[in-house]
């Protein structure tokens, strides 16, 4: 039924009024001749209105002759009549046509390329290699041979093991798999060299697999010192050069230091919010500013980005939470608690990600100095971590 209504809406429907003595017969004849009529209303006796599809309208002529009813058109609806009305406005039709052609044509171009799966090969390198291979923003999709592009990409960038190109409408997703770099432990047996410390600390454990170490547990080593030497000394034989191998675990110390004030200002939200919209082009943002400058605001943004030929265009919705600044005095315990929280954050975000198999041994909080306004907190953090990198001897 809905489909039929839709078709009628495009083809056009007419509301017709018939006037005569035999309106019932008229309706029955329509039914017999398979003419679909609907919404039949009796206005007064002898006058009936109904809707009919445009294609069936001509068939009513015979029936009106038979029943001696007069036919009158009340209204015309549908896309057909709209087009008929504006048929002389050729420029409008031309513009619509041009718009349709442009929108279809623009979908055959590549609007955006995104690369995923790369770790150590920079995106810029991949984009340049893709450009050389003939895949760039603004290129037409027609005639693009992805296999050729992939082959060219692999030839130009030797670090890439596999590449896949997926065209999704106007977007191109390039997935790459890099060749795995050999880990330090898998240094070839032929290269002769030593393991050198990259951090300072006290040796906690040392295991030599190949080479010689003169260091012992509990000794302090500085950064840059040889931990395991790639030589084997013998009383009877000549000294032999080998590849130094082994693991060294150091106890290193990190320091977290920060000042905390007793008097701080805290944000007190009033609960009032203001909204604004803005547009950003390549990280330059502009928004409708109607805010009162005497008040303080927290700005929360939510944006939708579009990549248009390499330019990032974002539509941004701003929310401004109004707050008042309130002076409060904290106690010493509260400041130390805050210092502990900040220190934990520092460990998790700064220290542990930069260590190899790092593990916090203990931490020691010291108040370095304090006066009426502030205290200075220093935290010494002892960490057990694996250190050392292989350096080839020249």
């Amino acid at each position: 039924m809905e489909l039929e209504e839709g078709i009628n809406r495009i083809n056009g429907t007419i509301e017709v009024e018939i006037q005569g003595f035999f309106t019932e017969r008229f309706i029955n004849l329509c039914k017999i001749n398979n003419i679909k009529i609907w919404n039949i209303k009796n206005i007064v006796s002898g006058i009936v209105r109904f809707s009919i599809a445009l294609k069936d309208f001509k068939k009513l002529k015979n029936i009106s002759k038979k029943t001696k009813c007069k036919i009158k058109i009340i209204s015309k609806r549908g896309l057909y009549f709209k087009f008929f009305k504006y048929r002389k406005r050729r420029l409008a039709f031309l513009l619509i046509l041009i718009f349709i052609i442009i929108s279809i044509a623009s979908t055959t171009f590549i609007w955006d390329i995104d690369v995923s799966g790369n770790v150590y090969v920079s995106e810029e390198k991949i984009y340049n290699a893709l450009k050389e291979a003939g895949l760039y923003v603004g290129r037409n999709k027609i005639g693009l041979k992805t296999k050729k592009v992939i082959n060219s990409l692999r030839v130009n960038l030797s670090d890439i093991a596999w590449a896949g190109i997926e065209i999704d409408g106007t977007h191109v997703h390039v997935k790459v798999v890099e060749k795995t770099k050999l880990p330090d432990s898998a240094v070839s047996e032929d290269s002769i060299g030593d393991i050198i410390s990259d951090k300072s600390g006290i040796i906690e454990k040392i295991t030599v697999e190949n080479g010689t170490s003169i260091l012992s547990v509990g000794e302090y080593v500085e950064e840059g010192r040889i931990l395991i030497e790639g030589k084997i000394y013998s009383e009877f034989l000549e000294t032999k050069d080998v590849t130094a191998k082994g693991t060294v675990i150091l106890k290193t110390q990190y320091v977290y230091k920060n000042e905390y004030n007793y008097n701080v200002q805290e944000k007190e939200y009033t609960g009032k919010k203001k909204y604004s919209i803005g547009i950003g082009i390549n990280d330059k943002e502009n928004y409708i500013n109607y805010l009162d400058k005497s008040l303080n605001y927290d700005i929360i943004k939510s944006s939708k980005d579009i990549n248009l030929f390499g330019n990032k265009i974002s539509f941004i919705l701003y929310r401004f939470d109004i707050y008042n600044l309130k002076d409060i005095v904290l106690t010493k315990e509260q400041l130390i608690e805050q210092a502990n929280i900040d220190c934990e954050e520092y460990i998790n975000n700064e220290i542990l990600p930069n260590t190899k198999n790092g593990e916090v041994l203990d931490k020691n909080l010291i108040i370095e100095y304090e006066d009426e306004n502030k205290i200075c907190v220093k935290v010494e953090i002892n960490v057990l971590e694996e250190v050392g990198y292989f350096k080839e001897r020249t």
Partner: protein
Amino acid sequence: MRMNRKEGKKILKKVNFKSKVSVAKEKFLEKLNLPDELVYDYAKITMIENKEILIEGSNSIVDYYDNYIKIQTKNVYIILDGNNLNINEINDNELLISGVISNVGYMSR
């Protein structure tokens, strides 16, 4: 013209046979448990409160006014009384009428 006795018997036989066939047909259809409106072409009327009425198996419209509609079916006339009675749809077999229906009546043909 006087009917021959033999011819009379022949006609009687034919009538008897026809009636026997129709009885057998009825019995057979009864055993199939088919709905009556399919077997005997009865009109089927479905009503939604007093707002809408769907008549399946209607033949034609006899009278149509704002407050009165008379519809012909195979066996009876259906007479509807009410206000603002509109025929929403009409096709080969069905008739959908909406409005405020106050009375549904039947009249034998």
